[in-house]
């Protein structure tokens, strides 16, 4: 039987209008502007850029406004927008060691060269609601030191000198990395695809997996070797020029997680590494990413793979909130025919069950 599912056009149009009205809220209250979102909800903007995998604060602010602050919906909007633009080039790899630092801490060396620079962080706030903010109050400019800090050597360079930390150097061919926005993921995926997937993965999902590793599901004995946040230059080599030019600057958060490792048949005992890198001020995301990156290297480092966060296919297939949200929410689409056939089947099974029960009952 073919059932045409049509209709609902007027209902959908009216639903759009109702959505627009609800998004606007009380018309007596001034409408929020994109600039206000970008300037005052900056961490939300950063998260949407990171998971939307598109560094554009204005568009991320628009997505947040359009989605009424629903972050997963905003990420979806940004992802959809990016598909409308052609890919013009790939950048040279960003140099995070040359970052204009806004924050830089190490939990492994108190006197790390370059120092512990806290930047703007919630870490030392008391998490008490600040009722003064509810009415709005002028904010005094933050104090500035007389001089900027000199560039700080990264922790890896310091530790590599003794060979205590697994080295990360480019392969001889320094090949172009695979791109999961171009080719569907297949397993096992290399670490380049793994990092790309994690960098755009859902922060909540990665946070839970990272937390699980700390509680014993694939323990990696992590230390936050270094966390950096700040601006890096983006350079491309346009084919019409043939040399590198700066096209702009982006803010990123980076986490070098260093992990205990007893060594294997081929590797001496040394610290191994998990890496986190994300657009914007996304420190929690970068830390969770680094934990999960290291966990997923279990196979490569000869560790037993026993927990979800060590299983690449489990993690990479479920980290994307656009895909996850789409598949969960597709259950709202009409399944009338599917369900009808299930109903028919169930009625038959029940009829057989009760008929059988009747017979059994008569027999006893």
């Amino acid at each position, binding site marked *: 039987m073919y059932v045409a599912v049509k209709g609902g056009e007027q209902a959908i149009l009216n639903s759009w209008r109702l959505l627009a009205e609800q998004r606007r809220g009380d018309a007596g209250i001034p409408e929020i502007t994109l600039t206000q979102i970008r300037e005052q909800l900056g961490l939300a903007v950063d998260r949407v850029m990171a998971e939307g995998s598109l560094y554009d604060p204005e568009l991320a602010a628009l997505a947040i406004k359009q989605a009424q602050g629903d972050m997963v919906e905003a990420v979806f909007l940004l992802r959809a927008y990016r598909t409308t633009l052609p890919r013009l080039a790939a*950048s040279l790899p960003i140099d995070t060691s040359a970052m204009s630092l806004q924050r830089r801490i190490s939990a492994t060396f108190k006197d790390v060269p370059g120092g512990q620079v806290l930047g703007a962080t919630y870490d030392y706030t008391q998490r008490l609601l600040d009722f003064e903010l509810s009415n709005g109050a002028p904010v005094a400019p933050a104090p500035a030191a007389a001089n900027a800090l000199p560039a700080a050597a990264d922790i890896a360079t310091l530790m590599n000198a003794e060979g205590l930390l697994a080295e990360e150097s480019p392969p001889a061919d320094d090949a172009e990395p695979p791109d999961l926005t171009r080719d569907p993921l297949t397993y096992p995926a290399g670490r380049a695809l793994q990092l790309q997937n994690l960098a755009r993965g859902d922060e909540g999902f990665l946070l839970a997996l990272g937390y699980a590793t700390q509680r014993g599901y694939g323990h990696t004995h992590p230390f936050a070797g270094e966390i950096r946040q700040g601006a890096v230059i983006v350079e491309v080599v346009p084919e019409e020029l043939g040399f590198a030019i700066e096209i702009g600057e982006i803010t990123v958060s980076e986490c070098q997680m260093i992990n205990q490792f007893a060594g294997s048949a081929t590797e001496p005992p040394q610290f191994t590494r998990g890496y986190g890198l994300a657009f914007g001020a996304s420190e929690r995301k970068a830390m969770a990413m680094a934990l999960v990156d290291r966990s997923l290297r279990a196979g490569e480092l000869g560790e037993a793979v026993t927990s979800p966060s060590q299983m690449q296919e489990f993690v990479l297939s479920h980290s994307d909130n656009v895909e996850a949200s789409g598949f969960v929410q597709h259950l709202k689409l009409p399944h009338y025919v599917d369900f009808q056939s299930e109903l028919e089947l169930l009625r038959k099974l029940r009829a057989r069950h009760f008929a059988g029960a009747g017979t059994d009952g008569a027999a006893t």
Partner: protein
Amino acid sequence: MSILAKADCAAIESACKTIGELPHVQWLRRPETGLVMVRGRMGGSGAKFNLGEVPVTRCAVRLENGIIGVAWVQGRDARHAELAATLDALLQAPEHDGLISKIHTHIIEPLAAVQTARRDLKARKAAATKVEFYTLAREAAAPPSSA
């Protein structure tokens, strides 16, 4: 190029007014907005991987004397790319009426100064949050009681 790419379009526009009318240019490539895939390195120094994309607008112009200017600027602003490409071409042209030095002194240097000042202030504010550790020296042991 780097200064023009990082400058605010409105700031370039108003700085350009100080050197008079910009010359007419011919499009070699009209402004086109697309994406650049930003790459990182594993652990900051290892093999490359794809981090995510940034919007970029590029264009190319030709002056009447045949000199070509190119721009690639982060963002979606066609006018920003056009101004950057035009100035790029003008800066490569032979000096005429002191135009090149005017572009340097009235456009590039002021924009660079703004960017440097902004970066410096941010860096100094970050520097003010550097932890200065101090160690509590153990108090000298009390002298043994003379009793």
